[in-house]
């Protein structure tokens, strides 16, 4: 395959062309009369382009070559370079993968027949989003980067606002739009200052800048703010939960699985410019990362809206990645190659992993919401009987995202842990190891959150009155999920290969680590894969043993034992909120769950309801009040425009006088 491609032409060109093709995939649909035809051809083109682009990206990654193209454009911002180095190639992988899978999923999930009014726009902007992200990672001209960045943000907005007849969708859209726009204001500053440092709008080469001048600190801050707002690092995450929850599911998969990574890519890329990053940068990243991880997962535990839970867990995963990056930066600043290597490997591998299991989960949630017609987990249950395949794939995703062996989430977290432990014997960064228990806590909470999600959705019986009979999802929806599940499994069982995948990207990032031998780590990962195999073997052996025993004895089927109570109904099950209530009560300081408990009076109280709603602490307690205050103060200033013309005249002459005094 590779050699064939090599024979055809330069893989970088293939990747770029694939990106452009994906971008144009939605255009025929805008003009084709027949509904569905446009969607179909968009899907086909997207998948074909991805099939061409993925091997190309992999080739570029493994050959660790860097190839540059010059886009001739008519704008006065210097050359417009498109360059694919291993880092870009690495980030291209999730883009192509998720784009293709999502657009296949859309065939079954958002068929044009059912959504004639919205399907065209959705397909069109989906293509734009995907290709803009693919081109973004290749852009080397600051202004071009900014343009592609904004196109990405806007297309994501239009995708998110697909169902804008719903109030909360509109609200989520506005919050998202304002957040992303504020972020890109910071990017204006970033690229301007970079230009003032390097003399041109071309992004500086790796390690070409020094972090000593004060401008460097401003650059780093601007990058952290602008890119962090897109990545959803706390405290810039306010837009994230509602946006991901209200978008169509394959769009959520795209946003969470890939678009957040673009923010991280920006941070990675900005950090490459400097050859002497100070310790404080790594420290800030680490602290921000670990706090996003903890708070994100804590909020996830409290959610009852399925997609909000997934969104909050995205904040957590981004936090873990950022922690890894911060650790790696600390390693670079302190010339500590193993730490830098392990942190970076953990971060990059987790980026890859998260773009496997998070889309899987979002697609699955799409199927379920499609079937049950609600996002509230308290009303779900027993879905697994209706759709066993989805249940199985979703289980893989849930285990993987908890970072439990034998799946891929564990591998990346393992690398990070190992990096932290490896500092125990050194003198300088020994306190770094205190992150390990925090990460462990994050892992434990993740288990709570996803046990809650999985059990309350798939297991037990349906908790809602309306008798829901979910049916198995169609092939177009199952295939993408199966693909992601398979990838999770592969990375989990053969982590050493995954390490090979990220190695070139790391090397391109840090010349420092290029000389350390990875054989030791590969060895360890070999052992881990061995252990996972042993684990599976033991489980299978036990299963066979059990089957053998079952063969001899009588098997009876009856209803669940109600501990003596005969009239147990499905609404007596432990719901999602009740499951997490205890865990949430531990963290109630930050989550601030609003629980309205009914007041039961008398011996035979009449029927009542108990409701719980986790609040978005930062948004609802800080940002919105601030906006209100600003609005009120503005209304005072607006009195200046009072409609009395003789005062307007006074304005004019007052200006005249002031300027006169200033002039003389």
């Amino acid at each position, binding site marked *: 395959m590779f050699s064939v491609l090599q024979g055809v032409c330069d893989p970088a060109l293939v990747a770029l062309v694939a990106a452009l093709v994906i971008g144009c995939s939605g255009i025929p649909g805008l003009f084709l009369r027949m509904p569905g035809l446009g969607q179909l051809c968009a899907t086909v083109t997207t998948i074909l382009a991805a099939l061409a682009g993925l091997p190309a990206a992999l080739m570029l990654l493994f050959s660790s070559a860097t190839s540059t193209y010059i886009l001739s454009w008519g704008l006065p911002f210097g050359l417009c370079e498109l360059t694919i180095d291993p880092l870009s190639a690495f980030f291209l992988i999730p883009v192509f993968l998720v784009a293709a899978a999502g657009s296949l999923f859309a065939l079954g999930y958002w068929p044009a027949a059912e959504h004639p009014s919205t399907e065209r726009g959705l397909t069109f902007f989906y293509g734009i989003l995907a290709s803009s992200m693919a081109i973004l990672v290749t852009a080397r001209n600051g202004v071009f980067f900014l*343009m592609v960045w904004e196109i990405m943000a806007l297309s994501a907005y239009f995708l998110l606002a697909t169902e804008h007849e719903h109030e909360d969708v509109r609200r989520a859209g506005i919050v998202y739009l304002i957040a992303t726009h504020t972020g890109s204001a910071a990017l204006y500053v970033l690229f301007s200052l970079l230009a003032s440092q390097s003399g041109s709008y071309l992004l500086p080469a790796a390690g070409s800048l020094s972090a000593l001048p004060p401008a460097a600190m401003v650059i780093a801050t601007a990058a952290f703010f602008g890119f962090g707002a897109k990545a959803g690092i706390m405290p810039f995450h306010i837009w994230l939960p509602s946006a991901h929850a209200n978008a169509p599911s394959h769009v959520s998969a795209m946003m969470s699985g890939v678009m957040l990574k673009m923010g991280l890519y920006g941070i990675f890329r900005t950090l490459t410019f400097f050859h002497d990053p100070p310790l404080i940068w790594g420290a800030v990243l680490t602290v921000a990362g670990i706090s996003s991880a903890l708070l994100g997962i804590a909020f996830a535990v409290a959610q009852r809206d399925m997609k909000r839970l997934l969104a909050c867990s995205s904040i957590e995963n981004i936090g873990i990645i950022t922690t890894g990056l911060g650790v790696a930066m600390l390693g670079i600043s302190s010339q500590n190659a193993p730490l830098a290597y392990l942190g970076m490997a953990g971060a990059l591998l987790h980026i890859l992993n998260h773009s496997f299991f998070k889309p899987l989960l979002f697609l699955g949630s799409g199927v379920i919401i499609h079937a049950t017609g609600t996002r509230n987990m308290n009303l779900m249950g027993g879905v697994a009987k209706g759709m066993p395949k989805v249940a199985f794939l979703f289980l893989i995703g849930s285990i993987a995202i908890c970072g439990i062996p034998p799946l891929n989430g564990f591998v990346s977290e393992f690398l990070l842990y190992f990096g932290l432990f490896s500092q125990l014997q050194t003198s300088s960064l020994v306190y770094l190891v205190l992150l390990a228990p925090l990460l462990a806590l994050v892992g434990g909470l993740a288990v709570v959150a996803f046990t809650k999600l999985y059990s309350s959705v798939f297991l037990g019986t349906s908790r809602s009155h309306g008798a829901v009979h979910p049916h198995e999802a169609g092939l177009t929806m199952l295939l993408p999920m199966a693909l992601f599940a398979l990838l999770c499994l592969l990375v989990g069982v053969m982590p050493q290969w995954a390490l090979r995948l990220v190695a070139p990207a790391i090397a391109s990032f840090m010349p420092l680590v290029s000389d350390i031998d990875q054989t030791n780590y590969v060895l360890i990962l070999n052992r881990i894969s061995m252990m996972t195999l042993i684990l599976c073997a033991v489980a299978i052996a036990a299963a066979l043993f059990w089957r053998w025993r079952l063969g001899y004895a009588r098997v009876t089927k009856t209803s669940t034992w109600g501990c003596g109570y005969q009239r147990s109904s499905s609404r007596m099950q432990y719901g999602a909120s009740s499951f997490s209530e205890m865990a949430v009560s531990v963290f109630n300081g930050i989550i601030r769950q609003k629980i309205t408990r009914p007041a039961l009076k008398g011996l035979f109280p009449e029927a009542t309801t108990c409701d719980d709603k986790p609040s978005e602490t930062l948004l609802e307690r800080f940002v919105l009040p601030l906006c209100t205050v600003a*609005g009120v103060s503005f209304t005072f200033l607006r009195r200046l425009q009072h409609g009395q013309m003789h005062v307007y005249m006074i304005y004019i002459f007052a200006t005249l006088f002031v300027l006169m005094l200033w002039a003389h």
Partner: protein
Amino acid sequence: MFAALIILPLVGAAVTWLIPFDRLRPKVLSLFALAHLGITIQMLSFTPPESPGGWFHLDALGKIVLLSTSVLFLFCAVYSIGYLYYRRERSNRVMCVGLLVCLAAASMVTITHHLGLMWVALETTTISMTPLIYFNRNARSIEATWKYLLICSVGVALALIGLYFLAYATIVAQVEPSLLLDDLIRDAGKLSSGWVHAAFVFLLVGFGTKMGLAPLHTWKPDAYGESPGLVGAMLAGGLVNLAFLSLLRVYQLCLATKEIAFFQNALVTMGLISMLFAAIFMARQADFKRMLAYSSVEHVGIMAVALGLGGKAVFGALFHVLANGLTKGVLFLSSGNIHRSYNSKNTDHVRGALRRLPWSGGLFLAGFFAITGSPPFAPFISEFTIVSSAFIQGRVVVGALFLISLGIIFIGMALTVLPMVMGEAPTDSETTSYKDTFWTVAPPFCLLLLVFLLGIWIPAPLMTILRDGAALLEVHP
């Protein structure tokens, strides 16, 4: 050649005046607009030589403004075919004549190098627009007209005395008295700084009033809010640029007199004030046409800041002349359609425009993104150029304030525009006869297309014009 540019619209005005049929006039108007654009392009491609005596001379700055005005005028004229059809109830004779006279005066402003003549032409544009603002013939529109007329007249009068000061400065300096730009630039070194400063202040205030810099902008929201969409487009996209051109002439003079620093600082200050004013007034704005007016205040502020910053920002300012003019055209024309359809300018009643008017609503939304500086639209190019040159020059405070007010404005505009276009139309909103037709949708669409194209590709000839213009405004140490 120069004469053609001015005579043609006047002839057109005479013709339209004589035409008795309301249906026919807009079409004739469009024909003359087309011809005018033809001549314009002709003149841009083959620049005619400076007229004897140097009264008329089409330099790069003039070219930019002339081009944007002529293009915008053409699309407004075509739009008027569809728009005036919906306003059949009243005669459109005055409207068409006024537009053409205004066009003639505007062309005069762009091609003349005689400041006095420029002043006359500018005042003519002011007066010729007055009856157009009063098109709706109701109490609100008469109030708007009165304020527009009086404030602008006073402002331009102040500009006139500024010019007199300049002329007297030449007399005092014992050089051959004249108001020709080139002579003034030539003798600028000799002029006495006292008169020159006074002149600059009066000219800044005068043209600033016409341009709508805060706090001289008070007429703007009323005039834009009460006039029909296409008149608003001409005011915001055309007349503003003419005033800016006059300011550019003054700027050239300042450069020559080496008194530039004060003028630049004054420009930056007033520009920032305008942007902050716009930000404050745009938040929670209930009337979307007034919101557009404040957005226009913001953008003249941007141009002023850019001019004050100098350096590469000047290029941004010149490009912004084009970008802002065309984008304002999109916004005002599409908002005019929305206004027609809902018969209300109040955002409480105007909801779900995308569902009710897919084309106009979509154009309005796209125009909103364009005017707030989102790529791939032209204003992004200019705004980014300005911001980045501010930071590159180390004017961090200016850049920061610039960005902050842009941010507030975006938030305010988003909170007004998005609820308008998104969602479902309220059930109690009255239904009108208006439907999106080719004639009312195509012009804003073409304008948007232009804005988009300029956002991703500046053609080489235009680029050379812009560069020449920037060169005219460069600080020579």
